[in-house]
């Protein structure tokens, strides 16, 4: 089966990852998956504000996900929406298990993610970018988090669906995982899929996460070790 952009079913869109793109942040990263581009900037650990939100025994992780107005074909209204709030939450929950938050009690780690071009799979790109940015900021982590979506288009389980496929897809299944720990930190399902297909899609996604992990590692190495 040929996909709309000529990829194989188990092929990722071309991925570009760059670390250290925002000079003012403690750590930052840009992740481009096909036409989806996410930029993440990490600040902290720094003072929690407002103060009553401090957590006594660990750092608070705050994620802000935003589609910038020009990222979509129709203008995306700036400011939090129902959708972006949900994505903030799932991104935070996908990243939290990877970070040693208990090392910085009463502080706050801010992760700002801007999608500057959206072409489906923005939350997975956002998680990939945020994970690289957190590592780039030197925040203690158990593992890098990698994320990719799988789905069903027609009769086939395909990997990393883009916008043209998302419009006709039966199901979209974003997954984030920590490969070393073999833990899944995000699993959502948009649509309906039999158990057999879910398993297959998960296997496909987790397999391709390894490729993404390598890219993330390379990006960090390129940033910090010249030559």
């Amino acid at each position: 089966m040929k996909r709309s952009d000529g990829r194989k079913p188990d092929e990722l869109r071309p991925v570009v990852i760059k670390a250290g793109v925002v000079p003012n942040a403690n750590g930052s990263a840009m992740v481009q998956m096909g036409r989806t581009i996410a930029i993440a900037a990490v600040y902290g650990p720094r003072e929690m504000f407002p103060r009553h939100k401090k957590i006594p025994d660990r750092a608070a992780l705050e994620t802000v996900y935003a589609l910038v107005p020009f990222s979509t074909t129709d203008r995306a209204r700036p400011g939090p929406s129902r959708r972006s709030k949900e994505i903030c939450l799932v991104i935070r929950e996908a990243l939290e298990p990877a970070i040693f938050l208990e090392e910085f009690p009463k502080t706050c780690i801010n992760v700002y993610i801007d999608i500057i071009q959206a072409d489906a799979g923005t939350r997975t790109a956002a998680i990939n970018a945020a994970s690289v940015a957190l590592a780039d900021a030197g925040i203690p982590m158990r593992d890098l988090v990698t994320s990719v979506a799988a789905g069903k288009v027609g009769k086939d389980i395909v990997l990393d669906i883009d916008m043209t496929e998302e419009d006709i897809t039966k199901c979209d299944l974003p997954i984030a995982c920590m490969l070393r720990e073999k833990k899944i930190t995000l699993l959502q399902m948009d649509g309906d899929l039999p158990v057999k297909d879910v398993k297959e899609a998960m296997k496909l996604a987790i397999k391709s996460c390894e490729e993404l992990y390598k890219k993330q590692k390379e990006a960090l190495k390129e940033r910090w070790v010249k030559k």
Partner: protein
Amino acid sequence: MAEEKPAEKAESKAEPALLKKEREFVVPGEKIVKSMDYLPGRNCFREGDSIYAKRLGLVFIDSRVISLIPLNFAYIPKFGDMVIGEVVDIQENGWVVDIDSSCNAYLPLSGVREFIDTTKTRLSRVYAVGDLIYAKVSQVTDPDRVQISMKDMMSRKFRGGRLVSINPAKVPRLIGKQGSMIKLIKDKTGCRISVGQNGPVWLEGGKEDMAIKAIHLVEEESYIDGLTDRVSELLTGKPQEKPAVKPEEKPKPQEKSAPAVNVEHSSTAVQRKLNIKPEEEGK
């Protein structure tokens, strides 16, 4: 040679357990060692029988202790650190100082060398908002409760000069072993330089531009061998003749560190001694 056999055996057994070379770049979660013969040090953690990197950095192996030289982090105040901060607020009994960290530091009246009668003197006459000070972290009761003091001999208020900021992770390298690197820059440029553990570097007089160039060189190439030579080359414009004692090659993680860390180091040294002794006695 025969005496060292048991030790050798242990080494050869443990050697393949090391998955990374000394000074190799690792990202968080990367496996460094798969063996129980090593101990996780700074910036590493153990899980099962393996040691993993906690943050991105370069592997640093000190006999059996595996640690990481971090390449980047946000400054967290530690007891005994000298920091450069800016006074941002004045309260009844002290000053609030921004030290580029997870929280602002508090400089109480008791932390100032001279006696101040608050009924007669305004605190702003001692340190006004916007003043830059070089202070010592005197108390960290909580990550969000940090006190600094100006009682240390090195402490002072800066007047004039220039301020450049570097990555706090590179500060130990800029200072060098026993201050060798900063001394080199000071000697060659004639600048007065104060380095804060939190990142800012204050300098005044002499060839300031040259010194700033050197500081940025150290920041960018901290992990490449022969840095001292390159710095002196930059400052003098010609390759330096090799000094009798070779300048440091490896930066120790956090050379100017809190006493707690020194205890850690000395304890490993003690361990090493203890490890060798029984073997010698055995043969």
